[in-house]
């Protein structure tokens, strides 16, 4: 969503981007003999380099000038390449991924609440807060927003548009790495994880509003809650269909998403 706003990049490999950093960490531990915290730092650095800088320079920059559709197709191809690459060069089966926090439970009013879940929620909230602050409360963030809204005018005003777009790609890479480190201890690290994650993230962004960060968060929470309620109280077999029903409903009745703004573009 950040990428779309700043550079009109729709990344269909976003799910694979979330899958990959976990394998950077595992590879750093396995082949580099690093401890888990050090390996996470290496994983983050490699994610910034590969999924941020190289993705922009090698995939987006050469193709975006030919339009959005070629880029969409390229990112679909990239998703397949990343998935098959992990399968071929690391492992086809799921790999255990260590948790950076306690896996114990807290007993509150007779209910077991997982420390893991609390940590994930806390990290997600803090990250979103920081991101919002960065985008709205700092000069660089405001320049990035200006770039997103009108790159031509931003250029006239002296904003280094190219650098702002690069920052967006790096922030995206850091966020996918963080998501990977949070989700892999629960889902296990597997080459195919991106399929589910990418689809759900994409639907969440559209449901919440593709041009609003808070919209995507609301979309994600809504999707997660509905999905689990449906699976627990209606039917586990049809749970995969629910996000799609929600997507259709939003596209029909509120195409800009629940919290999104109506945008007009010159075509």
């Amino acid at each position: 969503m950040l990428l779309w706003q700043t550079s009109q990049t729709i990344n269909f490999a976003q799910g694979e981007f979330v899958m990959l950093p976990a394998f950077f960490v595992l590879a750093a531990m396995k082949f580099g003999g690093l401890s888990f915290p050090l390996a996470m730092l290496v994983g983050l650095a490699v994610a910034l380099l590969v999924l941020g800088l190289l993705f922009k320079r090698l995939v987006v920059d050469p193709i975006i000038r030919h339009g959005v559709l070629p880029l969409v197709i390229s990112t679909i191809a990239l998703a397949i390449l990343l998935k098959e690459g992990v399968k071929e060069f690391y492992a086809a089966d799921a790999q255990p991924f260590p948790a950076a926090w306690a896996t114990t439970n807290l007993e509150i009013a007779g209910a077991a609440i997982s420390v893991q879940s609390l940590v994930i929620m806390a990290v997600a909230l803090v990250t979103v807060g920081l991101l919002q602050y960065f985008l709205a409360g700092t000069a660089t963030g405001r320049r990035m927003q200006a770039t997103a809204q009108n790159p031509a005018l931003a250029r006239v005003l002296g904003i280094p548009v190219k650098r702002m777009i690069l920052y967006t790609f790096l922030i995206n890479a850091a966020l996918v790495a963080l998501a990977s480190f949070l989700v892999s201890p629960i889902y296990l690290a597997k080459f195919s994880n991106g399929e589910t994650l990418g689809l759900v993230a994409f639907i969440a962004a559209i449901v919440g509003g593709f041009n609003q960060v808070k919209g995507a968060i609301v979309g994600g929470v809504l999707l997660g809650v509905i999905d689990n309620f449906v699976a627990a109280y209606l039917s586990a077999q049809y749970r995969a269909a629910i996000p799609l029903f929600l997507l259709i409903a939003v596209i029909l009745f509120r195409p800009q998403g629940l919290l999104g703004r109506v945008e007009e573009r010159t075509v």
Partner: protein
Amino acid sequence: MRSFVSVVLALFAVGAAAQQTVNMPIVIELSGAGAVSGTNFRDGAVLAIDEINAKGGILGRKIVAPQSDTQSNPGISRAQVQKAIDSDPYVILGPVFSGSVKVNMVLAQQAEVPQITGAEAAEITQMGNPYIFRTSFGQQMSMPKIANYIRDGLKAKTVAVLWVNNDFGKGGRDTFTKEMAARGIKVVADVPTESGQVDFAADVVKLKGANADAIFVYTNEEESARFLREARKQGVTKPLIGETTLLGQKVIDMAGDAANGARGHVGLSADAPVPAVLAWKQKFLKRFGYVPDHNGIKGYTGVYAVKYATGKIGKFDRKLLAKTLHGLTITPKQEPGILMETTWDAHGDIDRVSFLAEVVDGKQKIVQTLPKLGK
């Protein structure tokens, strides 16, 4: 003229080389949901093949075993088995997934090629195919054992069932619920899950809500590990009972601490208190660098069963091999590679000792050895 003679001689040499080998293709799950099972089975088979080849092969012929990946997809497995049949195999090794075996075993049957499978769905050996042979218990053999344990060992009156909605899981669930009904144990929750499912939060909520005396888990390896992690996360305290898969070493490795306390029946175990099995485990670990699960034993013993039966009949005859395997008992004294005394019945089902186990400190611990059913 000289070049013509060279070509003819070369062709004869190739023909002679082909005569000195025996083709045993491995058609197996190397990716997809069955990758853990398939890789273990494949590596077990490769270990046995290398050992046999190092000692001169079977009846003087070296084994060649080309590998093909079913991608855990029944349709692809059928195409791969057809491809294997086109290469004139002596036997086909694999696959492990019951859904795949059900759609491809007809091809092997029509071509009269014995198929040594790791699949466990009950109906596979009940379809009158004389060319299908198991390497582990079918569900009709293992579920009565686990049902007895739930009744006598846990004294449970109610049970919740979590199963994977594929041929393996559905077959196991049906057989299990029948065995529960026969023992007067009530199934209070029946929770199907999907193959490859990653999120088990809602399923665990359902199981907790059922408040059964025990929870029986019958899913494939990766799903079992994810379930165990989620069950730990939600503080499930009821006994988690499984049949072989839940207690497999790979599941334990993936689930980490969350696997501790899981218990149940294992038809095959790399931790079985049998010296030959423990020695095999070390050999496997040294060769492949990971601790094998029961599927490794399936692949290994399957190859040795073919070797022994072929040696017994003294020639490479597929039909005679199938006939010989029916009703055959192989003891470790006759063939050390079989690891434990094993009998195949008239349907291709297997009988041998099995075990009750529990996961303690990240290791499968065998707590009781159960005798062969036929004893």
